[in-house]
């Protein structure tokens, strides 16, 4: 598994063509059409059950769409899933790790699984970057919520992904944890693309270049962040934290 | 013809076996019959509910 070659920047990070996903009678996603340019930072808002997480899981090739086409980094989720999996990192409120392996063993295991060449150095570097070097020999089970989140972020960065998907990563994090997570995201921000699913308007908007709001599986709004701000002012959409984007540091979980 | 031992052995199996053979056929027929009746009655019930719904829908939007 050669390390993922950089695609030419023109290919969009995500292309959706009438993407639909229904669970029996309920429609979770209803004919979504959307193109996200490479290097963008998309934040997805929406009430519970609006289809945010389902969309993310389809992009991450964990779930399949009922109909329609979804392309990630130019690869189709139906036919070239493994190509996509080699190029995306996924962070969610679930740890996605092995509880009985140590921090270092976890990273080494996933590095080898992703076919990363210099697994040893990569692991050590990431452990240092996420401030877990001191705990690298401790079993993940003994970690605090914040440390697990950082280890999960390290795991997602092992294979130098081009697109990083974050599914409500701030849930259950203390302010200090959110702080370090945001710092880490900024550090690796260079021409990678990001998709963040968040309940929290505040922290979601800070880094967003594009915003998507879903309602009952349909696109309510999709555009750049400035367009979103005008859209919010124009419609005076009342959402409890929709005041102008104040420069607060870490958003409350 | 006086009771002939051989005759008894020949037919012994027939008499002993007979009730079970008949029971087997009867049960097979019964189970199939019950199943057919159940399926048809369910089919009728579903159709009735569909008709009811269609009527509601047509009444609803005119």
């Amino acid at each position: 598994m050669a390390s993922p070659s950089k695609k030419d920047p023109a290919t969009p990070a995500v292309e959706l063509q009438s993407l639909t996903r229904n669970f029996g009678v309920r429609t979770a996603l209803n004919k979504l059409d959307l193109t996200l340019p490479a290097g963008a930072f998309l934040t997805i808002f929406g009430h519970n059950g609006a289809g945010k997480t389902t969309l993310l899981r389809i992009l991450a090739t964990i779930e399949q769409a009922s109909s329609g086409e979804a392309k990630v980094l130019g690869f189709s989720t139906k036919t070239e899933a493994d190509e996509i999996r080699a190029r995306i990192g996924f962070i969610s409120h679930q740890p996605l790790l092995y509880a009985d392996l140590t921090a270092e063993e976890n990273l080494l295991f996933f590095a080898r699984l992703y076919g990363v060449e210099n697994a040893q150095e990569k692991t050590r570097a990431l452990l240092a970057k996420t401030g877990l070097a001191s705990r690298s020999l401790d079993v993940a089970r003994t970690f605090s919520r914040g440390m697990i989140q950082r280890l999960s972020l390290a795991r997602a960065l092992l294979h130098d992904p081009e697109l990083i998907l974050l599914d409500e990563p701030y849930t259950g994090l203390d302010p200090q944890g959110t702080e370090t997570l945001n710092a880490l995201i900024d550090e690796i921000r260079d021409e990678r693309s990001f998709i963040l699913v968040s309940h929290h308007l505040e922290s979601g908007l800070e880094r967003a270049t594009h915003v998507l709001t879903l309602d009952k599986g349909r696109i309510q709004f999709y555009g750049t962040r400035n367009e979103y701000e005008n859209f919010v002012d124009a419609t005076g959409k009342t959402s409890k934290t929709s005041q102008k984007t104040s420069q607060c540091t870490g958003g409350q979980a | 013809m006086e009771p002939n031992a051989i005759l008894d052995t020949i037919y012994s199996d027939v008499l002993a076996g007979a009730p079970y053979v008949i029971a087997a056929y009867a049960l097979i027929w019964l189970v199939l019959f019950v199943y057919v009746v159940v399926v048809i009655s369910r089919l009728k019930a579903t159709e009735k509910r569909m008709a009811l719904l269609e009527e509601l829908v047509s009444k609803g939007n005119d």
Partner: protein
Amino acid sequence: MTRVFALISLALGALLTTGAFIAVFFFVPIANGGELAQVANIGGEQVTHQLWFSQKIFYFHVPVAIASFAALALGAWHSIQYLRTKRPVCDLRARTAMEVGLIFIILTMISGDLWTRSDWNTWWNWDPRLTTYLILMLLVIAYFILRVQIESPERRARISAVFGIIAFANAALSMLIPRLMESMHPVVLSGSADSGLTPPMLAAFLTALFGMLFIGFGLYYLRSMQLELAERLALVQARYDEAQGS
């Protein structure tokens, strides 16, 4: 229109089986049972064998068994179709085929058990063939219990499709292995069912077989129509409630 087609097939099946039934009990000679101690001359005819009356169950027992195997095969086929095309109707058809299969397996068990009772006068002996059918019954019952256990319709269809295929592969193996094992030992069972079938017996057997297959297919078709209608009804009902609600 399709309902008529199903009813025709059912009627044809019923006709054939009753025809076979009449033939078996009135025309086809009773098969030969165990050897007699010595040849007896009754009414001028040389009688050499005990009359094996219970063999009469054979004419329905084996066709029903074959029909159940065909139903499982149909179930496995629709399961494969579902995995390939993800169309919910395939899952529904697979489920119906398994249900009809279960009915026929139960019939095979009943007739097999009664045959055991009349031949070896015990209600149950661990005869490999009969045990195989007990296992198949458990397998299909497990299939339905598995279906009930999974909530999300999409995963339930996928998982039961996989188990449908496993069940069929297993059914084939469960049928094959006991027979192979038996064929290795010198055949002990005297007058085993399929050997020594005189032409009239064969004719009766075949009519019964096709009759059962037609009944099976007719039932399958009727049942899957009923389920498809119920499914559509649920969809329309949900849409209607939604329309009412919002």
